[in-house]
């Protein structure tokens, strides 16, 4: 078997495992277990990305999945009472029908798509040749992904960084201790007469 065939075989096995883990996540009624299975899902996705030669994406998945996503989920679980989440599993017809129809439509639409890695697929002939040809001349960095991300589409990346910035500011405003402590100080300052109420 050639390298490509081996990679295809491993890819199929990985996607099968992904399916198993997904159904496990759906069936599991315990949030902590869901967080753990989501960790496995992230590891599997990193390997699928690696097989698709999208090393930079796999790297992001690896860093986020191994480093922070599980920890932040656990931090959230510590804030909420996760033991109360006993949702009974019951079959619902309409959502199932909608999901099945959507899946069928997507599968039907996939018929027209070119195979993975086809050289003359529309996404390969649009701007990709330009990037591949011009990057050594104009930017001269070995990793073309970095060149596209940081230079050709720098404005787009600026927007992404702004999104992350906004997320950080939002979490700061929602959970930060400053407003709470300020409110408490205010309450204490003018609340001596109301002490009996509390």
């Amino acid at each position, binding site marked *: 078997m050639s390298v490509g065939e081996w990679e295809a075989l491993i890819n199929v096995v990985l996607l099968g495992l992904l399916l198993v883990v997904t159904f496990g996540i759906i069936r599991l009624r315990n949030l902590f277990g869901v967080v753990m299975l989501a960790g496995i899902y992230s590891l599997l996705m990193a390997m699928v990305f690696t097989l698709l030669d999208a090393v930079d994406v796999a790297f992001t998945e690896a860093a986020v999945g191994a480093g922070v996503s599980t920890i932040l989920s656990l*931090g959230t679980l510590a804030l909420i009472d996760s033991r109360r989440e006993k949702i009974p599993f019951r079959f619902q017809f309409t959502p199932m029908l909608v999901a099945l129809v959507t899946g069928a439509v997507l599968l039907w639409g996939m018929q027209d798509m070119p195979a993975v890695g086809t050289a003359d697929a529309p996404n390969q002939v649009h701007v990709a040749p330009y990037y591949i040809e011009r990057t050594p001349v104009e930017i001269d960095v070995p990793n073309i992904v970095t060149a596209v991300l940081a230079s050709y589409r720098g404005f787009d990346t600026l927007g992404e960084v702004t999104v992350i910035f906004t997320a950080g500011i939002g979490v700061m405003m929602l959970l930060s201790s400053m407003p709470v402590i300020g409110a408490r100080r205010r309450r204490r300052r003018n609340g001596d007469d109301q002490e009996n109420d509390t």
Partner: protein
Amino acid sequence: MIEHLVPRILAKLLIPFILLFGLYVQFHGDFGPGGGFQAGVIFAAGIILYALIYGLDRARRVITPGLVAFLVALGLLIYAGVGVATLLLGAEFLNYGALDSHDPVHGQHLGILIIEFGVGTTVAAVMITIFYQFAGRLQITRELESDETDDEDGEEEEMTGSPQ
């Protein structure tokens, strides 16, 4: 967690490597896989590990929330500042070629390096912020509860518990 000997000692050994690897990913992004986003997350993970092992209070003394909030904004400002600088040098927004008047390719190198640094700064600071806020929330909740029951106690806890 500080009383757990094995994680404490080994984390002490590994945190420098994690931070160093983060810097490697940051500045090696032109050549191999990686870049500012991944590097920021890895760097933040090192700090988060420190906070997990030694406690949030000590981590907040090393990397104060004020500094982190400053860095969140600084990274984005670096990125946008490069764009403004290229505008002032007479090129389009974020056209790094203008950064070096003699050799546009060298200007591109410089621009990519600087903006990746900005991305890394913002991402690392945001991740640390999110962790600080989520992990520190229970402390605030407890303080508020103890404040409602016993006001005298709350006075002392406020000194140690409130962030800088």
